[in-house]
């Protein structure tokens, strides 16, 4: 969680200064919460203010990790299948028939 926390009243008094500081950021921090400030009633938090750049970098990293996860998953499937003998492969028609969708093929419509 953010290392800095402010009660709502203090955050309101410092709001312009806080926004100016966080909006001047030009480089994303390594962690989403490095520069984040938590705000909430009685200092209990609940709302987080952070530079847009840090949020965008974190979201881009999640997307990148999802892509890596997908490739890793695909590699597991593809590795064994690259070596299937050609005579064991299915025609497009046989593949479609195997899932009951032979009628969607253009030459059978």
């Amino acid at each position, binding site marked *: 969680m953010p290392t800095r926390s402010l009660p709502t009243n203090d955050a309101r008094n410092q709001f312009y200064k806080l926004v100016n500081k966080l909006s001047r950021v030009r480089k994303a921090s390594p962690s989403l919460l490095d520069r984040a400030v938590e705000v909430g009633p009685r200092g209990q938090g609940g709302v987080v203010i952070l530079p847009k750049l840090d949020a965008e970098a974190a*979201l*881009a990293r999640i997307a990148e990790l999802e892509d*890596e996860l997908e490739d890793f*998953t695909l590699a*597991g499937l*593809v590795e064994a*299948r690259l070596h299937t003998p050609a005579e064991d492969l*299915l025609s497009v028609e046989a593949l479609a028939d195997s899932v009951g969708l032979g009628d969607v*093929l253009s030459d059978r419509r």
Partner: protein
Amino acid sequence: MSYEVRADPGVSEDLQSLAAEQENVPADWRLAEDEIRPALTLAIQIVESLREDPFQGEPMEGRANAQILRGCRRLKFDPREPWPRGPEGRPRPRMRVVWTNEPDESTVALVRVLAITHRFDSRPYRAAAARLGAARRQGSSG
């Protein structure tokens, strides 16, 4: 020109397991029950379209942990329009067709369809977990 397109038997399993697999997919990315048949239909139509154009989709880079994918092509698709968006806000279709042009892209004799999967397919992880479990049982009994 028409190219010879053939699919690995595992691709049929991919399609047949698609509905059952959805319970392992994160809720936001799950195919709804009424999206399964449209997804399968699109998949078959894409595979058929490879006869005319095996160069569609994107060449795969093969990241460090998935080098075996280098040389494969991938076409992403989704039965939902507009496509669902990823965490960064870009459209992220949920399904993929993966194939390879053999022997290479300049002289295509065979278009080998390797996989048709949801982007979150847990089968390889469960298979790895099962292999690990079997190895551990063998280790403890031996």
